[in-house]
């Protein structure tokens, strides 16, 4: 038997062991079909390894060593909630623990009837059916983990803004993991629909209910899908602050109709292994996509962001700025693709990846990539890698700042370019503190 085949068998056994844990009853027919299709996709796939170009730097072998059990429903105290709940979303938040909806921890009293905020099961049947239809048109290159998520799909967080709905306050979706003594996995799912000319501001946050430095490994395999109809605007901030024992694998898929604006702010702080596939499809003219990313990692953390923005029609805009602060022996991976085919004339696209390395052992692998076949476009891309400059530190110290304070100030300044783009004040404050605390030694 050739080694390749044996690997395939091994990962297949691994995946089918996960698949077996999903209950097969108690779902609508539509959902069942969807799940079955996803299941057969998973069954015919193998886990990617380092030979796969898209997984070159992100080694899943440690994941393979774990025997993950589906996480059960778990209780979380309101105290823990305080750590993650934002001031601005006290009355506009939904909470999921281990992927299960927690109505007790949720509070949507400030949300009016034009926006549905809740779980999939609580949604009216007509819209449930629509969503299931929507879910079927999964796209993109990275299908396996998303399909694994769909294979076990029972419920999801749903935000649905009706046409012309303007949500004046931000909405928070909080996905908490409650790790236990044994290795568990959970599969949160989030669905966001912004109908024609609606306006949403969303914070999607991943956190851990328990010790941030918990030792027991766990897996969060999460999928978020966002549909923007014509002229809709969605400002979406995604914060990942799981425990350092977490494997966090995520996909954010965004579909944009004409004249819509999507802004995604990706903040990644926790997890030992983080892989985020962002896939944005512009499906109409004059569509705007802004992607901002901030990754701050230390120890032996790995944070890998793969983004793919496909433009298909004229007058599209993409602005992407992805920044990483990497210390100790951590590694940041960035792979950003923007596709500008012949039909996407008059595209305006910029992509920049900036990295700040704080230790000689810190690593960055970056590949910004524009694939352009249209000829009348304005496009630019690049990547930079820098360190804290001795002269900058000296300048600050000569004004009385201690060396560590000087460094913090510079690191915060690097992060501020992204954090300042977040419109929610309490989150901005929290993140600023977080970046500083992350780099404290």
């Amino acid at each position, binding site marked *: 038997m050739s080694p390749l085949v044996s690997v395939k068998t091994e990962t297949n056994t691994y995946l089918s062991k996960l698949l077996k844990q999903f209950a097969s009853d108690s779902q609508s027919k539509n959902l069942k079909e969807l799940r079955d299709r996803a299941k057969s996709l998973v069954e015919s796939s193998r886990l990617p390894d380092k030979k796969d170009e898209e997984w070159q730097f992100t080694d899943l072998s440690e994941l393979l060593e774990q025997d993950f059990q589906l996480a059960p429903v778990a209780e979380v105290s309101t105290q823990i909630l305080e750590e993650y709940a934002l001031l601005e979303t006290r009355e506009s938040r939904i909470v999921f623990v281990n992927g299960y909806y927690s109505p007790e921890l949720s509070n949507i009293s400030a949300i009016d009837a034009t926006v549905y905020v809740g779980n999939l099961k609580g949604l009216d049947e007509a819209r449930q059916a629509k969503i299931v239809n929507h879910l079927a048109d999964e796209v993109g290159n990275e299908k396996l983990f998303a399909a694994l998520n769909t294979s076990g799909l029972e419920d999801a967080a749903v935000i649905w803004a009706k046409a012309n709905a303007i949500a004046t306050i931000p909405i928070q979706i909080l996905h908490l993991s409650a790790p236990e003594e044994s290795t568990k996995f959970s599969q949160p799912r989030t669905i966001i629909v912004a109908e024609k000319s609606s306006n949403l501001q969303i914070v999607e946050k991943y956190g851990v209910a328990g010790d941030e430095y918990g030792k027991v490994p766990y897996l969060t395999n999460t999928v978020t899908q966002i549909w923007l109809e014509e002229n809709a605007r969605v400002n979406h901030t995604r914060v990942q602050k799981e425990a350092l024992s977490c494997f966090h694998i995520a996909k954010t898929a965004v579909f944009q109709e004409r004249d819509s604006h999507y802004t995604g702010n990706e903040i990644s702080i926790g997890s030992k292994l983080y892989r985020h596939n962002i896939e944005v499809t512009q499906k109409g003219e004059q569509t705007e996509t802004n992607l901002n990313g901030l990754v701050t990692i230390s120890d032996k953390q790995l944070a890998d962001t793969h983004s793919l923005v496909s433009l298909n029609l004229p007058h599209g805009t993409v602005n992407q700025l992805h920044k990483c602060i990497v210390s100790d022996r951590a590694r940041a991976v960035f792979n950003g693709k923007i596709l500008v085919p012949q039909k996407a004339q008059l595209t305006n696209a910029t992509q920049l990846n900036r990295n700040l390395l704080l230790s000689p052992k810190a690593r960055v692998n970056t590949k910004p990539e524009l694939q352009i076949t249209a000829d009348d476009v304005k496009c630019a891309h690049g990547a930079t890698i820098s360190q804290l*400059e*001795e*002269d*900058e530190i*000296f*300048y*600050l*110290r*000569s*004004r*009385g*700042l*201690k*060396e560590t*304070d*000087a460094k913090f*100030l*510079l690191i*915060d*300044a*690097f*992060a*501020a*370019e992204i954090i300042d783009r977040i419109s929610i004040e309490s989150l901005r404050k929290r993140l600023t503190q977080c970046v500083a605390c992350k780099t404290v030694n």
Partner: protein
Amino acid sequence: MSEVILSVKDLRASIDGKEILKGLNLEIKAGEVHAIMGRNGSGKSTFSKVLAGHPAYEVTGGDILYKGESILEKEPDERANEGIFLAFQYPIEIPGVSNLDFLRVAYNAKRKYHGEEEIDTFDFEDLVEEKLDVVKMNPSFLERSLNQGFSGGEKKRNEILQMALLEPSLSILDETDSGLDIDALRIVAEGVNQLATPENSSIVITHYQRLLNYIEPHFVHVMYDGQIVKTGTKELALELEERGYEFIDELVEVGA
């Protein structure tokens, strides 16, 4: 007799193994203004950075006594908090740090060092407004990122603003006048003069006698290859302007 603020004795310093300061001597008393002139590359900025404690320079000989105590072992921030201030020849631009925040952090660092309570944002803003007047700076500069996109003159004025806030005992102005138009020069010089007291003193590094019409030095020193080779009064600056540095070359050769 007034107190000696700074006493530099046979100071030697090198960078990357290359000796730049080669036995420099200087003594400054409270209330005095000393000008240092000298050709490009003679070591003026090196001297100022060594005084402020730049870690890239290694002191290989001699001593620096500040208010009677050696500061060679002191960190740059300690030196700053004890009252040594360097206005940089090339102030650093730091995007993302607001000028106001930076000023407050620096001001509070000093207060903390001296065991005083930190000042809050509101009180600090009042204080800064007052100091802005010293350098005739528009308050809008406070909102901008530290030195980012500032013109040369604005950067230099910002240095003097920091000096006004931190009230140093010894300020070292490294070419604060270079490249300034006459209005900016006047503002900067008047700012420096306003801040002068009988208790503090300053070192003014310059290439141009012009500055010394506005800031009157008690002594003028000429630096040459890492040493102070001649000391005089205001008239020495005039002589240098007229005759150029060649006469210093001759002087050094004769001395050698």
